[in-house]
């Protein structure tokens, strides 16, 4: 049963969703534009007997996440781009030690200190690794406050299910905006046994220890052992690729042009699609919800459709997801691009102009 819709800020909804998913650990360091996640947690965690620590740095925060996850507890941290760069050390270790954790990145414009306005310039960092080594994070890109809620709950389930880090990739728009959200009476929280957790060996009634000692580690000095470990990770990633691709698609059956866009850009593009329809131009959309695993099959299949003449990829960067779109399209159709940088958002008119130009013969 869904409850009555309430108006809430995206950042606060992330925090509320985490708590509803059973997360009782938040470790963070302040950075704009995601501080409301932290403010919400600072209050709520104390009220419900959870753990909130304002860490000395993002580096420390992600390592507190590592600790809490090692002990078998649901845990989250949140930050924005420069802070996520600092967390990459811990993110790599979490991948190596196969710990479940949720990391939120409310992306702002970079590089460097950049600016604080919305951007999607961290797509590469989020989907291709970010830290050192051969690993993947599950990356989820919600497009509304309602989705932020539902997908954050889901992120905790996925993290536990695969013993993998799940990143929620939002941007300043999504974090700062208020929208109605309808909470469920009961959350679909899935619980998984964690026999690997380091929470003390414990004693039986006879005083004997209950089990052998557990270890959580990412170090494997022997190359043969490490290779096996890496193969196991890759096998796991293949299973995730098979099971967990999520996307939204519409209008593909008669679209002449297909927009690929995620999160904020997909919302702006939806308005444009309506405007284009009024002008008699049929535009469809594929919106990846998981950026990794990437919905390559639907893009490849769509590219093969005879009605589809071209793709238009819209992003808040200089063209990052477009590389994955092009790999999936694999040369079957042209892929055009529209992006804004520095924290600016594309206007509907800019995107519509691009569509009209593609429609009139690809002179873009």
């Amino acid at each position, binding site marked *: 049963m869904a409850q009555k819709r309430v108006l809430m800020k995206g950042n606060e909804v992330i925090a509320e969703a985490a708590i509803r998913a059973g997360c009782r650990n938040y470790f963070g360091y302040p950075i704009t534009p995601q501080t409301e996640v932290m403010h919400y947690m600072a209050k709520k965690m104390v009220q419900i007997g959870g753990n909130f620590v304002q860490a000395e740095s993002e580096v420390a925060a992600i390592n507190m996440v590592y600790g809490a996850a090692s002990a078998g507890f649901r845990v989250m941290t949140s930050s924005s781009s420069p802070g996520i760069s600092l967390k990459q050390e811990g993110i790599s270790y979490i991948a190596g030690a196969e710990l479940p954790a949720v990391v939120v990145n409310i992306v702002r414009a970079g590089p460097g200190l950049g600016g604080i306005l919305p951007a999607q310039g961290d797509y590469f960092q989020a989907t291709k690794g970010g830290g050192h080594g051969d690993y993947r994070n599950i990356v989820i890109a919600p497009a509304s406050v309602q989705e932020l809620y539902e997908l954050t709950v889901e992120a905790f389930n996925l993290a536990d299910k695969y013993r993998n880090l799940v990143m929620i990739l939002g941007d300043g728009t999504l974090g700062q905006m*208020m929208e109605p959200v309808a909470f469920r009476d009961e959350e679909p929280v899935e619980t998984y046994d964690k026999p690997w957790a380091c929470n003390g060996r414990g004693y039986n009634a006879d005083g004997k220890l209950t089990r052998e000692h557990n270890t959580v580690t990412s170090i494997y000095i022997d190359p043969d052992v490490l290779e096996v470990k890496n193969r196991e990770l890759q096998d796991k990633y293949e299973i995730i690729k098979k099971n967990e691709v999520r996307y939204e698609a519409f209008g593909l059956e008669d679209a002449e042009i297909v927009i690929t866009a995620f999160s904020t850009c997909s919302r702006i593009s939806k308005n444009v699609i309506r405007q284009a329809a009024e002008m008699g131009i049929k535009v469809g959309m594929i919106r990846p919800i998981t950026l990794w695993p990437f919905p390559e099959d639907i893009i490849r299949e769509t590219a093969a459709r005879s009605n589809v003449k071209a793709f238009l990829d819209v992003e808040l960067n200089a063209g990052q997801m477009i590389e994955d779109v092009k790999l999936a399209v694999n040369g079957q159709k042209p892929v055009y691009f529209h992006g804004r940088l520095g924290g600016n*958002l594309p206007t509907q008119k800019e995107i519509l102009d691009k569509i009209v130009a593609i429609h009139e013969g690809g002179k873009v």
Partner: protein
Amino acid sequence: MIDFSIILAGFGGQGILSAGKFAAEAALYEGKEVSWFPSYGPEMRGGTANCSVVISDEPIGSPVVNDADVVICCNQPSMEKFESSIKPGGYLIVDTGMIKIKATRTDINVIEIDASGIADEFGAMAYGPISMLGCLSKATGCFSRDSFEKSLYEVLPERRHKMIPGNLAAFDKGAAEVK
């Protein structure tokens, strides 16, 4: 109504962001889709503040407003910045107590109201933008007075309910300015 968009702008601390939230809450009370998006960052610190509110019968595309149906201006810099962002046929609601320049566009409807005067009369700055919500409601019908009232009772904590009659009075005063 599809993507009816409002920009509210003024000084930080004037109650602009809250007024935007109240507008969104009132429309939400009517079962509409709504979004509220604030300007954020360094400009918040003692400078200008603005927010965009979108009200729609359908899922909202962008919460970011480039071309607004209505712009509510509570100071002169906002007027200079946002007058050009109004769709032809749209509305500009101006606080004449704060803004001494006149609107230059002729293809829009201009509503002038001494909102800061109303704020002085009611004894708090926040009543100014609330009176302008009265203009907004009366002129465009994007939400009703009734929804505004009922949403206030729903959204505000009990301890603040005593402020509601004052807010409604300011709202009504604003609505009365719309001929």
